Structures are given as C-alpha cells and as structure tokens.
C-alpha cells in the first residue's frame, strides 16, 4: 500500500485556476464516495480550502494511481487534464506524509504558522471518516497530524507574533496598554488599513471609537460600524486628549496633526500614554510628535518592520516544528511496520485461546467432581501459562517487523506456530464481511432512490 497526495495550491496555481477546482461543501460527501470507488484507491480524504485543493489517498500500487486521480478530477470538474496537470503536484509515501504534516502545522500556508488550516484538515478527515472513506492508515495518520499540529502550536510561539500591519498595531497597543477596555480610539481619515486596525482594536475591547473625516457623511458611515462618534477635524483637535490610540490614514499632502496640538492634548491627559499610528504616505502626523513625553508614534515603515521581525521569528519556530515532524514521521513508519504482524498475532492468540478452551473442556470431562471455584482457579492459571509463553514471541515478532528481513521473519513465525490455516480463514472471513457490507450499502442506496422516486411521484400526483 502507498500513500499519495495530488493537489494544487496558491504556490503552484493562480486563483483563476484554483477557483475551477473548488469543492462545494455539500458536494464533498459525493466526491469522496466517487473517489473511493476509483481504481486502486483504498482510502481517501479531500482537503479543499481557498488556498489549496488536495486529494490524499491510500493506493494499492503507485503505478497509475496519479493517472486515476487525475481522471477523477477530469470527470468531476469537467476539464481536460491538459488544463491543470502543469499546476498539480504529487507526492508519495514519506514525502506525502511529510507534506500532510507540514500543511496541518501551517508551515505550507500563505501566512506561515496560521492555525485555521488545522481545523480545516480535521474537518476534512472527519467528513471522510463519516463517509467511510478512511481506513486504518488514514485513521492513524490524520489523527497523528492533527495532534502534532496542536502540539506544535502550543509548544512553540509560531502562532503568537502578528504578521500583518493591523495586527502589529494591536500588538504594539498591548505592549503599551495591556488591554483596551476603557480605551478610546480615534480614526482620522477613511483608509482601509486604519479601518481594519480600528476594527481589530474594537474587537479587542476598545470602548469608544471616534471617527474623523473631512467629509462628515463618510465619518458617520464609518462610525456606524463601531457604534462610534463621527467628528469633524476641528472637533477632533478639541477632543484629542480623550483618545488613547490615534490612527491616521488620510490622503492629505500636509500634516494633519502637529507637535504643538499633541503637546497641548498631553497636558490634559494626566500622564496617560498616547499611541499614534500613521499609516498614510505621505505621513499625516508630524514626526516631531515622537519627542513629546508619553507619546509613542509609529509610521507604516515601523509597523512593517515589526511584521518582518515577527515573520523571522515564525520562520525560526518553523525550524523547531520541522524537527517535530521528522520525529512523528519516524513514529508513523514504526507503527506502519507493525501493521503486518497484527493479523499474525491475532491468529496466534485465537489459536492459543481455542487450544485452551479445548483443554479446559477435556479437563472438565475427566474431572467432573471439580467445583466452580477449583475450575475457576485452574482456568486462570492455565490461561496465565498460555499468556506467559506467548508474551516473548509476540514481543519479538513486533521488533522483527521493523528489521530489514521482516518478511522472512514473519514467514518463519507463521511456519513455527502453524498459522497458515488460521490466517487463511481470517482473511476469508474479512473478505466475506466486506462483501456483505458493500451489498448492504447497495441495498440501502436502492431503497433510498426508490423512496425519493415515490416521494417525487407523490408530489406530482394530486
């Protein structure tokens, strides 16, 4: 069996291509069912977000599996493969596992370390599990990837530092004020960035928002978004001392606020600090304002510098997560190697249990005078003998599963304990159960279609 991933993302294809390969949420169950029925595919998960569409699959052979998946995509999206093959990437086995873990941890995201992708991967897996599109491998792998991502986010600071200008302003504000309750924000101008920053501050608890604009109607429009107060520029200067945070982003050529105005406002502020953010180019706020005691003035370059510094920090944290990924991949490989021995161990334990039962039955026939308690003690002790005898062989075969000659070791194990027949019987029973489950599913589908037809007929018939 092999694990493969085929997909496209924001790195390999522009949005005009990605938008043709989106799965609507309501379509995903049907897509999973169709994909599961595709040749070679034993398990599958579809991850569909705005920045990537990926198909994870467990295939029985890796020749042609890429072809089968591309065929599915052709049929589903109704596009010839020549239109999208150049944008696709495909990874197999270790590379596929590594890719999944990197994606889940946010290392492959547009904003490195973002946490939204973790929830998206988890939801994609849970849906696939619900649709019975996953099996032993993906049940283990995806759970491991999600657990790893949670650990990565809690044990490193990859998600902590702000990596956008507006969030950098909020982070700075927190360094000055701690929290924004009972703080007043003043927005001067109607720039998108200042609006976004004010929105973040308001969401973080800022109590009052004063909106200043040359055009009063525009100020009213923006103030409505924050339950704020619209002001003219003259009122803004008069009430400057009330603001704890001032964000300015006008299209003005000259300075909107000068040092003298701010100095006067600070005298009325009783030593409380004032945080001023100048996002405009050319700058709105006189740079000499920075010299006023208690004023912290930042322009767009300063904020972008903070963002860059935080991105560096995230990249450094990403290196730690890469190490964690290597360890998890190794753990998955070790687990995968032991998969093959599970049927052997199960067969051996079943055989041992059957021999134990036969022996107990024979004992009961030969010694009918034994009471309940005596039988119980003998059963317990004989069971203990069986378990102790099997303990070492089971441990050893698990260890041997990771060796170079694992296949030969397992063959020898089967021969030594004469497990050929029990294994064949177990395989046959499993196949029969699978066929029965498929037949039952077919019967239920047919029943559902029949009911839908009857309902449609009932709707049409008066």
């Amino acid at each position, binding site marked *: 069996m092999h694990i493969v991933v085929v997909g496209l993302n924001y790195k390999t294809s522009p949005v005009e291509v990605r938008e043709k390969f989106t799965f609507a949420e309501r379509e995903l169950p049907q897509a999973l069912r169709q994909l599961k029925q595709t040749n070679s595919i034993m398990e599958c998960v579809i991850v569909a977000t705005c920045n990537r569409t990926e198909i994870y699959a467990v295939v029985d052979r890796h020749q042609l599996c890429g072809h089968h998946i591309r065929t599915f995509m052709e049929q589903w999206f109704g596009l010839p493969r020549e239109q999208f093959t150049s944008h696709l990437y495909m990874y197999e086995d270790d590379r596929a596992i590594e890719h999944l873990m990197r994606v889940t941890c946010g290392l492959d995201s547009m904003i490195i370390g973002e946490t939204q992708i973790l929830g998206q991967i988890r939801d994609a897996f849970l849906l696939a599990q619900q649709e019975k599109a996953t099996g032993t491998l993906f049940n283990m792998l995806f759970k491991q990837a999600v657990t790893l991502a949670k650990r990565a986010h809690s044990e490193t600071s990859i998600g902590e530092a702000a990596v956008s200008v507006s969030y950098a302003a909020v982070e700075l504000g*927190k360094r*000055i*004020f701690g*929290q924004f309750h009972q703080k007043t924000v003043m927005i001067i101008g109607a720039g998108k960035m200042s609006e976004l920053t004010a929105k973040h501050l308001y969401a973080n608890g800022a109590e009052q928002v004063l909106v200043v604009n040359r055009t009063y109607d525009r100020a009213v429009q923006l103030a409505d978004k924050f339950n704020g107060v619209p002001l003219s520029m003259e009122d803004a200067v008069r009430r400057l001392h009330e603001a704890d945070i001032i964000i300015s982003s006008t299209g003005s050529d000259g300075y909107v606020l000068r040092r003298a105005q701010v100095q006067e406002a600070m005298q009325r502020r009783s030593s409380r600090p004032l945080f001023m953010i100048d996002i405009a180019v050319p700058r709105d706020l006189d740079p000499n304002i920075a010299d006023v005691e*208690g004023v*912290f003035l930042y322009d767009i370059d*300063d904020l972008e*510098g903070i963002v860059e*510094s935080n991105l560096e920090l995230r990249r450094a944290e990403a290196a730690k997560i890469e190490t964690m990924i290597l360890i998890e991949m190794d753990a998955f490989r070790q687990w995968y190697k032991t998969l093959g021995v599970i049927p052997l161990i199960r067969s051996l334990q079943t055989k041992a249990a059957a021999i134990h039962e036969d022996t107990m039955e024979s004992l009961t026939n030969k010694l009918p005078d034994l009471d309940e308690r005596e039988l119980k003690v003998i059963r317990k002790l004989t069971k203990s003998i069986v378990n102790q005898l099997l303990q070492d062989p089971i441990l050893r075969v698990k260890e041997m599963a990771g060796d170079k000659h694992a296949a030969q070791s397992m063959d020898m194990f089967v021969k030594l304990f004469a497990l050929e027949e029990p294994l064949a019987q177990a395989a046959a029973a499993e196949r029969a159960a699978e066929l029965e489950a498929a037949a039952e599913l077919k019967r239920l589908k047919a029943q559902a279609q029949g009911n839908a037809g009857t309902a449609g007929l009932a709707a049409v018939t008066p």
Partner: protein
Amino acid sequence: MVFNHYLYVMLIYVYALSLLFYFSDLAEPSRRAKRMGAGLLTFVWVMQTGFLIYRLTTHRDMSTITLFEYLFLFSWLLITISLMMNRFFRVEFLVFFVNIIGFVLLAVNLFSRPSAEIGLQSWGQAIGLLYIHITLITCAYAILTIGAIFSGMYLFLHGKLKGRKWSASMRRMPSLESIERYVYRTALIGAPLLILSLAVAVASIIVEGKSALLLDWKVFSSFVGLGFYLVYLVRRNVLRHGGASTAKWNLASFAVLLFNLFLNSASQFHNWT
C-alpha cells in the same frame, strides 16, 4: 557544621542552576526550561524555609542576630515574593532579576562574612521594638527592591517603544501601564512600611534614652530615603508626572536606600557591616 557548609554550597549551586534555566527560557522561550527553573527555585525556597525554621527553633537567644541570618532571611523574602508574583502574574523577567539579587546576596553572604553580628544586647528595654523595626525594614527593603526592578523594566520597555525598536523579549514583558501600576503599588506598600519601621526605630531610641542618636547620619539618611519615596508618590498622584519620569525618580529613591545601607559604617550605633 561541615554538613551545614555542604548544605549551603548545594543551595547555592541549585539556586544558580535555577537561574540558568530561567535565563535559558528568557533567551529562547521554552516551557521545559521555565518549569525546571521554577521547580529548582521552589526547592531552594523550601531549603531556605527549613533552615529558617531550624534557626528559629534552636536559636532561642534573639539578642544577637548574625548578619548571615539577616541576609539569609532577606534572600528568602525576595524568593517568596517573586514566586508569589510569578504564580499570579506572568512576569518571568521580574522573577529572574529579583533572584539574581537574591542569589548574589546569598552567595556573598555564604562566602564572605557569616559571623558579623547585629548586636541588640545593649538595647535592654527596647529590644522588642527593635525586632519590629528589623522586620518592617526588611519587608520594606524587599518590596522596594522589587519596585526598583519594575522601574528598570519600565524604563527598558519605554526606551524600546519610544525608540521603535521591536524585539521578541518585549512580548514577554507586562505592558507599560501594568509595570507602572506595579511600581506604584510597591511604593504604596513599601513607603508606609518604611515610615512604620523608622517610627518604631525612633521610638526605641527614645525609650532607651539615647535621644542623641537621633542626630546620627543613619537616621538622617533614612528619612531622606523615605522623603524620596514620598516625593515619588506626590509626583505620580498629585503632579501627574509621566511614567518614565516617575520611574527614574523611583530608581533614584532606591539608590538613596542603597546608599543608606552603606552608611552603616559611618553610624555611631548602626555599624555592624
């Protein structure tokens, strides 16, 4: 005695190790390092507490307190306050710097002068008042030491924010307003303790009939130190001076207190250095 010596040395090593772990966590955030540091520091605190209880129960004659015991108590007090603050507030920098001071005191105490005594024998009637004075002044010094560290943190963060120099360490410090509040609260607690301590000291001098000692340099400088803290409170609450200015004044006040310590040698009666 030999056993005691090895115990003290072990204490110093464990203390140093805990500070190394804290430093490691500050340099490169690591939960494991922080937990190790906190665990080792707690161990040091437990050992110190055990030693203090032992001394209290065996050292019945309290007319002499060795400087070793006094500084040991001071170090214990610093650790106690830092651990309590770390429990309720996220102030790793404070824990680190407070314990640097505690460690230096403990190390110097152990290796330099364990035998000097604070002789209280000559203070017959007022000995009870002196115990109160020593307790209050120790608590005042401990709290005002923490206030000084917070002032230093404030000026550091203020400088960084004012100069627009962003660094990862800033994210791990409390906000500027929070630090300023902590500085104020330590002064609000420390200054009254200082007042009470000096009042009790003056009372003990008068009770002993040694009023001439009120003109001693030590008494004068102690009141000057107190004055500095009172001016800090006035500047902060009444004159509404900015945080940086008041933080500097707080540090200056602490410098006066430290200078006051060194004046012990110039004192006629407070000279056990």
